[in-house]
């Protein structure tokens, strides 16, 4: 047996290669090589180190309806990137932690991710307090932080540099862009006399300030009422609403968001005023949970909950995105129709991995030494609607690292569906940047 194989090897070695054989073999090899570049590249694990992505979300304690979906969509996006060959041949490796909606805890998790897990970048969380607590760390260690859904506009405002050194990126809306986009719809269509009944913390105050200043500047009247963020009985607050109020703007999260809408109807206020709110109030909560009390309420959405309310041209991308996230056409979890999506927030986590991919490819980033180049590349992206950008065109602004996409005004119909009444193009949500982070070297 051994003799036989030795003989065969000698024959092969001694065989003369003709020119025809050479050309045939080379052509086949070249064709094979070029074809292989079209097919998904399986990872040769260990060949190149993975790109480590940290993910922080609210999985327990508070705002879990957001955390659940941001986490799910973030994981799906990373899995898709890896299935398509990773970024520059490198696999994305996920390191995931719960913020417990606790800034101090989140800061320690952020430190753990940076120092122990050695993550290259971090994404997630809708909690402004969590981001604020992480800022000193990302600034010190120069790690990019991609916001999951925090609404504090100041984070991309005039103090950006001192807050986070330019290492914070946000591809979604916030209190100011929401107000710039939607105040006029409310003012023109719902009424000139507004009462804000908002949660007594930064987000609620931000919305009252941003919308209120524009309403007053246009000659309208406003009244501010702030209630503790976890208020359950709203009657003491609803009875303070001015009798001549035409628009009641509310901003609460979770069960309080649910409570304020329902109790407005319980005391009969809905008969004499229009209710206007941001979708954050009922994200992750189905309208059937709010009940028929939500009929007639106006919402500002950042990405429609129902597939058929989206512009037709976005449908193919949206269907693929929903399939990857396990979401049906009505914004419910596939196989679990009691669970509603946080559709106006979770898209951020779908788009970030793709933005990171483009940023790395454009900047030639390999490690943290070129983090600022990576951030600059990401923040100059002008994304076109596509499988990775189902929300339509999304524009990042280099000056303040802020992203803009279209807004939607919807109303709850008798069948409890959020029907889109008006699409507000992203250009109408843009405001003058308050900082210029392009100067950072």
């Amino acid at each position, binding site marked *: 047996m051994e003799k036989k194989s030795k003989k065969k090897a000698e024959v092969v070695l001694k065989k003369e290669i003709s020119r025809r054989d050479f050309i045939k073999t080379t052509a086949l090899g070249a064709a094979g090589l070029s074809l292989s570049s079209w097919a998904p590249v399986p990872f040769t694990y260990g060949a190149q180190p993975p790109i480590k992505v940290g993910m922080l979300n609210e999985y327990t304690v508070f705002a*879990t*309806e957001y*955390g*659940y979906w941001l986490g799910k969509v973030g994981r799906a996006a990373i899995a898709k990137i890896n299935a398509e060959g990773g970024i520059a041949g490198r696999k994305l490796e996920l390191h995931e932690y719960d913020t417990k909606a606790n800034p101090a805890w989140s800061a320690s998790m952020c430190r753990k991710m940076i120092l122990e897990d050695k993550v290259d970048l971090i994404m997630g969380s809708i909690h402004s307090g969590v981001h604020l607590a992480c800022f000193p760390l990302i600034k010190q260690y120069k790690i990019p932080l991609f916001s999951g859904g925090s609404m504090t506009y100041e984070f991309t405002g005039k103090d950006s540099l001192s807050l986070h050194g330019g290492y914070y990126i946000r591809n979604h809306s916030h209190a100011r862009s929401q107000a710039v986009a939607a105040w006029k719809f409310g003012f023109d269509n719902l009424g000139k006399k507004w009462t804000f009944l908002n949660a007594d913390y930064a987000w609620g105050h931000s919305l009252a300030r941003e919308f209120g200043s524009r309403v007053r500047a246009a000659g309208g009247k406003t009244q501010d009422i702030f209630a503790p963020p976890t208020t*359950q009985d709203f009657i003491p607050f609803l009875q303070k609403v001015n009798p001549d109020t035409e628009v009641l703007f509310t901003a609460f999260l979770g069960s309080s968001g649910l*409570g304020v809408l329902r109790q407005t109807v*319980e005391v*009969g206020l809905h008969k004499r005023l229009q209710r206007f709110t941001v979708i954050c109030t009922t994200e992750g909560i189905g309208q059937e949970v709010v009940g028929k009390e939500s009929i007639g309420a106006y919402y500002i959405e950042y990405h429609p909950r129902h597939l058929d309310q989206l512009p037709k041209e976005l449908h193919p991308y949206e269907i693929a995105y929903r399939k990857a996230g396990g979401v049906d056409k009505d914004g419910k979890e596939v196989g679990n129709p009691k669970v509603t999506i946080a559709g106006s927030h979770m898209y951020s986590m779908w788009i970030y991995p793709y933005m990171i991919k483009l940023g790395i490819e454009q900047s030639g980033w390999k490690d943290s030494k070129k983090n600022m180049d990576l951030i600059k590349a990401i923040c100059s992206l002008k994304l076109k609607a596509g499988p990775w950008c189902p929300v339509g065109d999304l524009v990042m602004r280099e000056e303040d690292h802020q992203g803009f996409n279209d807004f939607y005004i919807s109303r709850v119909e008798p069948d409890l569906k959020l029907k889109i009444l008006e699409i507000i193009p992203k250009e109408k949500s843009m405001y003058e940047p308050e900082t210029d982070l392009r100067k950072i070297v």
Partner: protein
Amino acid sequence: MISNLAVAILNGIVWGLIMALIALGLNMIFGLLHIINMAHGALYMLGAVVAWYVIELTGNFWIGLMVAPLCVGFIGLIIERGLIRTIEDKPIITIICTFGLMLAIQQLVLMIFGGSPRRISPPVAYRFPLFELQYPAMRIMIALISIAMMIGLWIFLRKTKYGLWMRAVVQDREMAVALGIPVTKVYMWTFVLGSALAAFSGVLAAPIVSVEFMMGREVLIMAFIIVIVGGMGNLEGSVIAAIMISLIQGVGALFVPPSIATVFALAFMIIVLLFRPQGLFGE
């Protein structure tokens, strides 16, 4: 202004009665077992969650109101026999233990029930006019049910053999043992009753608030304040303290920002503790 004041007073009394029912269970457990039950809010939440499942199945609020306290009472029985009994003489350990239990129940509900709030529809949708506003009849009904429960509890404690045993154990445990009262059984049933009361109030409150895994957090703090102000172990004191605190908050919110009105309630507690450390009606 008068109309606002009238609404604030009515709502303060209604909300106070609901809070009183929650605080009663907490106070019973403290009065007899000397256990500060940090898991009381979680049992209140568990009652609402169980009722939500029952109502989903049956479509009937009243069945949920009956079944949930029984289920949570049974869970209370397991907790008392499996956990509390082994540590009942160690107050610090019981606080830590029931705190851990609270976290465990919350996380378990989060896993099974999910993080999104759910709704229990009010069984009575009628609203009656009250000055410029309307007032939901459901709230009045909840207040009346709370009053009925409190009267029932009073009769149970004052007119039944078991109630007599409970009061005897509170007064002098050793003497009660010497007289042949089954003290361990009394302990067990008191914990079961306290847990069932928490669940009952959770179901009653659910049509006003929403059902979610953290719903017991806010309520627990207020229930503790009520128990402290009313006097630890004094059930009548809890009812009066609950109504007083709710009125201070509700009426105060008419004149000052609501956060300040909450500070008024806390200031009231501090003043009471300064002059009557045993609470308004404590001995």
